[in-house]
């Protein structure tokens, strides 16, 4: 069942991502991205990472995508409003393949290639494990990211308060 779920969710995630970049209508594009994000949440769930699953749904599918769709609806973007990028089709394809290759190489270098998921990973992905890793081994990174987010938040408030 895990394997079936994995294949279903993977297919949905990839299909959603492909539709996101190929749809012409911005709203269909955004909704395809939602499908992709929810499918990734499902992948987390099959890895028994319930916390990540909930966060993925809450933050991406729930909050971020609602805001994106909200903006699309307020501006009432249609197909004709979309600015066509000055890239021809083969060039765009080449660019995307190249960036995918770079990503794969980076993943290979930093993550040390393919690693099998440990079969007896009891408690892996649980909140306790996640919190222990975050607040001990990766504390510095965690704090740096927090400060960055705080700075971004203050920046957003300052920009919003500016009188135009």
């Amino acid at each position, binding site marked *: *069942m*895990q*394997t*079936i*779920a994995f294949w279903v969710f993977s297919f949905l995630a990839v299909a959603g991502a492909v539709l996101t970049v190929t749809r012409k209508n911005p*709203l269909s594009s955004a*909704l395809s991205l*939602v499908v992709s994000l*929810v499918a990734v949440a499902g992948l987390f769930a099959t890895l028994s990472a*319930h*916390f990540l*699953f*909930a*966060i*993925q*749904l*809450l933050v991406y*599918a*729930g*909050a971020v*995508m*609602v*805001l994106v*769709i*909200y903006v699309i*609806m*307020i501006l009432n973007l249609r197909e004709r409003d979309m600015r066509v990028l000055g890239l021809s089709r083969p060039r765009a394809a080449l660019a995307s393949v190249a960036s995918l290759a770079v990503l794969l190489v980076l993943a290979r270098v930093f993550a040390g290639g393919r690693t099998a998921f440990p079969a007896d990973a009891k408690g892996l992905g*649980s*909140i306790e494990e996640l919190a222990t890793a975050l607040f001990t081994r990766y504390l510095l990174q965690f704090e740096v990211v927090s400060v960055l987010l705080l700075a971004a938040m203050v920046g957003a408030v300052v920009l919003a308060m500016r009188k135009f």
Partner: protein
Amino acid sequence: MQQLLDRFIESRGWTGDWAIELVYFLGMLFFAVALLLVVVTPFTGIVSWAERRIAARMQSRVGPNRVGPQGILQWAADGLKCILKEDLIPEDADRILFTAAPYLVFCGLFGAFAVLPFSEHLVIADLDAGAFYVMAITSLVPLGIIMSGWASNNKWSLLGGMRSAAQIISYEIPAALSLLAVVLAAGTLSLQGIIRAQGWSPADWFLFRNPFLFTGFFYFFVANLAEGNRTPFDLPEAESELVAGYSTEYSGMRFAFFMLAEWANLYVVASVVNVAFLGGWNVPPIAEGVVLTILQMVVFAAKSLVLVFVIIWVRWTLPRLRVDQMMLLCWKYLVPLSFLNVLGTAVWMMIVPEGSAAGRVASWLLVLVGLSLSGLFGLRVRKNLKDADVGRLYLNPFS
């Protein structure tokens, strides 16, 4: 066949046979869905009847009382009518999104039932991130509402959908923060764990654990009312301004899905508040075994149903807020106050250790405060009833 049965009974893991796994997967899906539909759908139906009867009583009307004894089968008749009705899709609507939207709303709310407990052992899935899961899965609802509003290609629907999205996203912050204070006090995100951290006597409930959680209960309740689009926060479907908001263009079964989701949400809200603040299924240690389980179910359902009644009561008593008042309440009052709550709860836990004498005294004092508040409310109601300039008040609910 034998292998398949083994798979269902033992459910131990991958057997390596694709056909068996597929049947098993579909079978489990079918069981889960059937359980939800058999339990939840009649419940939402009966709540819809109860709400209409209560509303009618509050407005000196009779309400539906024809189908079945006291009209209790009204929901079945309504459901049948909705199935038989024509399923209209407006010509200019976005067909795919229009048809998909009600299901998204429905899934978001019915998914929450997967982690809601009914007793100590009766729960579909006790996730270790249960409290988070409820918030996450219900965040699919605004997506469905926006989709329905936009796809209807109608300005009332669009306005309703946008209002709803803004409202739900705003009120999710105070709701999550108030729940965070509870999680701090319980030390776990699992709904069952939160209930186990409380006790059966009111002084052991998180509601009376400390002054910050006491006020947090009210923020959480108000924020959840707003997230469920219930009056006084039903701006997305304000009848006097927006016809019926995002569901204006819907008819037949699709409309029924929206209504079903709204009443299912009543129970979800009530039981999450119950779990977080009112001690859930905790009962005094007087029984064992099956009796204990039944007792727990009764206690849990009773607390939740009282809250459901309060939500209905609020809906038919208070007028609707304006959009700016709704935003003001959230961002200027509820968000800072619930931040204060989280901080206050943390400090309280440092100063007053759990189970200490000071903590017990504070809990019982808070119980007294709660009792005297409800006593004051009762006196107010009695005075108003006495002063009311009506010939005779019919207080019999079944008249």
